[in-house]
């Protein structure tokens, strides 16, 4: 495995991915507008109710959306790169696998930052979400979630032959995490076995961090973020193993 990273090549990959995304206006519009619209829908749902339903769910959703969206976008884009032969061409060039992976993570991380900034802004200033902790920390958590989604998307693209299969990994890998992450039932109220499973899933920590930032003035989310970052690194390393320079 090539481990050296070249800033020139990594940036070239990131710039190219962003350029492709800019060409696809519809995807770009959906990436930026959809999260805001979903949060607004959630606010509307609770508008006729008293209590803190929106306040309780919105932070989890802010963690969930960038993760899901980036997972989907990355798995399809990388699969395209694998099937079109451009990946094979790149791997036959002086390109480190890390350059390729970091380039993607950088590009989609940047998109996620913009996406989350919009969604967080809309939630706080328009929909009246109250955030007890620092707002910037909310953004940091959202971007880390997005990069985790990107890393997992890169990994699963190796196990799909078609875009159709790639999209099916979403329900397989993401929905169980959504159910167990504390969005529907507090994680400590889950049956013991499921609680143990939820302790092994990255999204649980992402949602925990998001909830902590929105409810506590001094949230200690270092541990949660370290777990999310750890899963991201593990997925990237496994993803690098699936980038084969030589195939049968």
């Amino acid at each position, binding site marked *: 495995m090539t481990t050296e990273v070249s800033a*020139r090549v990594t940036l070239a990959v990131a710039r190219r991915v962003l350029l492709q995304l800019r060409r696809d206006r519809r995807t770009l519009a959906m990436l930026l507008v959809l999260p805001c619209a979903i949060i607004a829908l959630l606010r509307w749902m609770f508008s006729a109710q008293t209590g803190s339903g929106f306040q309780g769910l919105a932070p989890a959703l802010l963690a969930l959306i960038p993760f899901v969206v980036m997972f989907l976008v990355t798995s399809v884009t990388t699969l395209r790169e694998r099937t*079109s032969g451009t990946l094979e*061409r790149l791997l036959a060039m*002086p390109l480190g696998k890390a350059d390729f992976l970091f380039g993607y993570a950088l590009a989609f991380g940047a998109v996620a930052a913009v996406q989350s900034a919009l969604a967080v802004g809309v939630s706080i200033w328009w929909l009246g979400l109250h955030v007890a902790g620092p707002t910037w920390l909310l953004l940091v958590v959202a971007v880390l979630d997005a990069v985790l989604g990107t890393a997992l998307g890169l990994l699963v693209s190796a196990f799909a032959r078609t875009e159709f299969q790639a999209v099916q990994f979403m329900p397989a890998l993401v929905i169980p995490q959504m159910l167990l992450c504390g969005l529907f039932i507090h994680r400590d109220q889950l049956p013991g076995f499921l609680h143990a499973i939820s302790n092994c899933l990255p999204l649980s920590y992402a949602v925990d961090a998001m909830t902590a930032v929105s409810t506590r003035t001094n949230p200690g989310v270092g541990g949660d973020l370290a777990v999310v970052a750890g899963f991201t690194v593990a997925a990237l390393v496994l993803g690098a193993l699936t980038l084969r320079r030589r195939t049968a």
Partner: protein
Amino acid sequence: MTTSPIAVAGLGVVRGRVTALDDVSFEVPAGQVVGLLGPSGCGKSTLMRSIVGVQKITSGSVSVLGEPAGSASLRSRIGYVTQAASVYEDLTVAENLRFFAAVLGVSAQRVEECVVLVDLARQRNQLVGRLSGGQRSRVSLAVALLGDPTVLVLDEPTVGLDPVLRRDLWATFHRLADAGATVLVSSHVMDEATRCDRLLVLRDGRLLVDQTPSALLESTGAHDVEAAFLAIVEAAS
């Protein structure tokens, strides 16, 4: 250690249960345009992939520029064009070339040279997805030329091109070879054989011919390469 730019010895490749290549051996000298001919499915692409170093091989050895095929140091010295145009359809011709140039670390000047070399100057700002099949494969060829490679491996680069352009591309291949490069070009069209300095003919994963075009015609007494191919196949069976 051999001095030939490409040296293949006893190469065997088994893909799944199919023997794609069986005991193939040859050497290619520098400064030549070598045609790799044979019907579809005979193993041409597998042989080219083995030389580029992206194919897992079962037996034998492949060395390029004195190093085992696939060595990291070879990656900037080999230009490889696959059958399908491996370029980004949602980027323009120039954007594609600038990206691959950044990966290879070559100048913007070289991008312009390569655009002209494959005759796509007028299309440089068009999206690749909007180009014709022939134009797309020329974008792919331009990418392979970017790094000024010492060894150029081209998998059917002239399929579906108009005769004028085909002639021009072959002239380009010969110019590159005259400058010292080794150019390996595959084709399933036998009449392209006469444009090569040397011929390798493959059938069912075995190397049938390793000769100059004129020597091939002379030894078989055939008028064209197609007839020579038939004569050899019949003699072998």
